């Protein structure tokens, strides 16, 4: 187990090097720098060439990209993710600020997805071929094909515009309308109301996908002889479904769960942007737009580490759910 973990970690570090090097190179290759993008074409904010040159030197933009990458890497090894160029604060504190709101939405969505997808998948495989299952599956498929950004706009129109003034009205965007010194129960209730639409958007697509995934896996397992063995023993239909069939579909599910770990803190760029939710996805989007290299790199590093960790976690979980698998 120890050598296995060590091998995985070494392999992971190598992967991280490749990813970050690639992303840094690409970010620097994008036209513009933090200075030009930030100042834009506004003539009143025009910097004279000497000042521009000075700032370029300060931020290390005068050196070629591989030198910049080496410098960034050296700082990372010392535990320093650097400072955001456009926001004038350390990348770590930026992340710390944004991770909570993202986690709130993604975590709630993830819990909802699994709480709903598993019963739905089991129901669909138990009633496979019947009219009610086919209707449900068709509906889920329609939902799955419906783009999030369109759904988000529809939801905004319905709940924030058409239903304005009714008890069903929901906030259009943002995380809270109350000042920071409002009493906490009111603040929490307000945040919860703001969360409803983003969470709905993030849940429905994955729900449709996951329940279909579970159903497909269940149908495969339900054809196996050991399901007949169980029925021959006299095992009831519900128990056959859960204990004999569902347990055998856990491996692909664990993979799916492992892969959803990065999304948990990565958030959804589109949803956070539409609902102006102050989370990681939006930070990532903005940092790319502003060519804020340290922030781009800090977030890239974090997402990559989480993706690798999710995969490792899935592999370790395999052993827990399948006696035939050993990490050795």
């Amino acid at each position, binding site marked *: 187990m120890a050598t296995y973990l060590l091998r995985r970690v070494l392999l992971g570090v190598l992967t991280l090097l490749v990813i970050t090097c690639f992303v840094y190179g690409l970010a620097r290759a994008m036209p513009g720098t933090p200075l030009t993008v930030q100042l834009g074409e506004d003539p009143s904010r025009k910097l004279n060439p000497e000042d521009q040159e000075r700032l370029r030197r300060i931020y290390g933009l005068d050196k070629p990209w591989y030198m910049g990458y080496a410098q960034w890497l050296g700082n990372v090894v010392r535990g320093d993710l650097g400072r955001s160029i456009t926001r004038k604060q350390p990348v770590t504190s930026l992340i710390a600020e944004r991770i909570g709101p993202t986690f709130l939405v993604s975590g709630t969505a993830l819990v909802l997805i699994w709480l709903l997808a598993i019963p739905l998948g089991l129901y669909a495989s138990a009633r496979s071929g019947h009219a009610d299952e086919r209707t449900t599956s068709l509906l889920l498929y329609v939902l799955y094909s419906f783009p999030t950004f369109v759904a988000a706009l529809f939801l905004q129109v319905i709940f924030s515009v058409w239903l304005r003034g009714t008890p069903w009205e929901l906030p259009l965007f943002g995380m809270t309308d109350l000042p920071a010194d409002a009493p906490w129960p009111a603040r929490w209730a307000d945040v919860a109301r703001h969360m409803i639409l983003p969470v709905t958007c993030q849940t429905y697509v994955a729900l449709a996908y996951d329940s279909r995934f579970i159903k497909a896996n269940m149908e495969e397992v339900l054809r196996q002889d050991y399901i007949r*063995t169980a029925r021959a023993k006299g095992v009831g239909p519900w128990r056959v479904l859960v204990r*004999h069939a569902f347990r055998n579909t856990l491996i692909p599910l664990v993979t799916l769960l492992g892969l959803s770990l990065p999304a948990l803190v990565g958030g959804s760029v589109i949803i956070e942007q539409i609902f102006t939710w102050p989370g990681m996805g939006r930070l990532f989007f903005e940092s790319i737009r502003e060519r804020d290299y340290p922030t781009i790199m800090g977030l890239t590093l974090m997402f990559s580490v989480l993706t690798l960790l999710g995969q490792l976690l899935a592999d370790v979980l395999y052993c827990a759910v*399948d*006696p035939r698998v050993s990490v050795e």
Partner: protein
Amino acid sequence: MTTRNGEPPILEVRGLETHFPIRRGLLRRTVGAVRAVDGVNLDLRRGRTLGIVGESGCGKTTVGRSILRLVEPTAGTIRFAGEDVLATNGAALRRLRRRMQIVFQDPYGSLNPRLTVRAILEEGLVIHGLGDAAARAERMRSALDRTGMPAASLERYPHEFSGGQRQRIAIARALVLEPEFVVLDEPVSALDVSIQAQVINLLVELREQFGLTYLFISHDLSVVEHIADEVAVMYLGRVVEHGSTDQLARAPLHPYTHALFSAVPHVDPTRRRRRIVLVGDVPSPSHPPAGCRFHPRCPLAEPACRTIDPPATDLDGHVVHCHVAARLLEQCDGDGARAAARMAEAMAGMAGMTAAGAAPAQDAAPAGLAIQQAGSHAREGELRRGGS
């Protein structure tokens, strides 16, 4: 088919039909049916073993599963120990399930890979409320012991065992519920030749010890001859011939049975033998031929065979469905052996056969090799494609 000593049969199957609907199109309408089992009658007395033989796809496995209600039959009646199996549901069906068990062909697929042997064996006991924890442990130990597996197997998972060991566990799994009747669905076909004999002998031993009744499904005639008291030959969802193993081995009356037996390799290389090679493929069970189902491949087919479904001809419990066999029996004054000999002659005289000399390698094959071929469906392939 009649019970000779007056005791009612433990299993009585009448007119069993199991059709699987074929659904097509957007609305998944039923456009037809695969008639996997299409009118099967069987009787089985307590303590006896009935072998069902036939090619792949003849419906023998579906018969076994229908009797246990693992697939739902379309029509017919099944009586087990006086109870109407098809009319039973819920708790009553569960009680019946304990008394009728099954061992599947593939021991790699029939044991749930997530469960320990203990969980696999104990589940049935718990469901049927058989004994407290200590009594259950004792039953499991004894079932494993009888099948030649150590008690330590309980804590292990199926993947830790070989195929033969797994099949022993599958048998122990069935036996632990102390059933009266066991369907053995090709229980040795997936096993290595050297293991086949061990498992067959184990099954025979267990039958004597517990007075079990077996329905032994196989495509391997040599194995069936060894274990079964009676044999039913199935073709395309029907039983075409049924009799004691002895009757069938000595005096097969149906042309299909002749073809099947002629394909069994013999140990004695000097024995003169004619191989009957059937021409053509088995017709689709969704569109079975009219009249006798065997007529498109039968070398003796007559005009009547194409239109009239041959009725049962019963000769001391030896039942055959064949127009030609019925006429031969009449001509021989009901002497089965003479009729069988004339049938063999007639088959030999018709087209689509080769003399023994044409396949010397087959005839000279040692016994062990012969069994291996049987296990790997080689014989069935020969039967269909014709010629070696």
